[in-house]
């Protein structure tokens, strides 16, 4: 299980390839990648602030819980911070488990927790100014299912 919090761009395809190649004994691999949308040209990019130190700890706790709960063979979380452009990968998670149910559930669990419990804050950058993204009630509500 690996966690990376980084300013540098990463290639989700290459990361999935490496993750899949390293998995032994799993029957199911699920991956999620989040990409910067340009919202029809309205946005020129995104700035992601984070809380160094706490970020790694918070993600580590979330991943530990997922690994234990779904008996994961492996898990990977990558999350960027700093300045991103439309189309850039913001983050990704990958989970490997015995069967598809566990791999899907663990990936969705990780996403729901990363959305609302890992200390990242997104600011949308547009031609007409920039704005902090507001937390969605739906994201907080999504945590209740776990």
């Amino acid at each position, binding site marked *: 299980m690996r966690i990376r919090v980084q300013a540098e761009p990463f290639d989700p395809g290459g990361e999935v390839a490496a993750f899949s190649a390293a998995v032994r004994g799993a029957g199911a691999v699920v991956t999620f990648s*989040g990409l910067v949308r340009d919202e029809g040209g309205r946005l020129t990019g995104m700035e*992601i*602030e*984070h*809380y160094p*130190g*706490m970020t790694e*700890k*918070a993600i580590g706790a979330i991943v530990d819980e997922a690994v234990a709960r779904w008996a994961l063979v492996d898990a990977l979380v990558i*999350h960027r911070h700093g300045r991103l452009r439309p189309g850039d990968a*913001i*983050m990704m998670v990958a989970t490997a488990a015995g069967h598809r149910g566990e791999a899907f559930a663990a990936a969705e669990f990780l*996403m729901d927790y*990363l*959305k*609302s*419990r*890992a*200390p*990242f*804050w*997104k*600011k949308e950058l547009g031609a007409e100014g920039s704005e*902090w*993204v*507001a*937390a969605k009630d739906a994201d*907080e509500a999504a945590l209740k299912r776990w």
Partner: protein
Amino acid sequence: MIDVLYFAWVRERIGLPRERVETGAATVADLVAELRAREERYAAAFADTSALRVALDQELSGFDAPLAGVREVAFFPPMTGG
């Protein structure tokens, strides 16, 4: 002395990312009251604590939590990662 950190629009409103604060506050809420009383920009940032989250030594916590032994307090809006 306690390190107080601000993130996202809390940081922007207060105008700095962190500061060391001399305080005798017993709880987070007491600390917030002290900060609010300082200057208008603090009063604005802490106007509605229901819109804020707090972490004590990098663990999410509540505004009624005691500060005894805590070295680092962080205030920020709800997270929007992922």
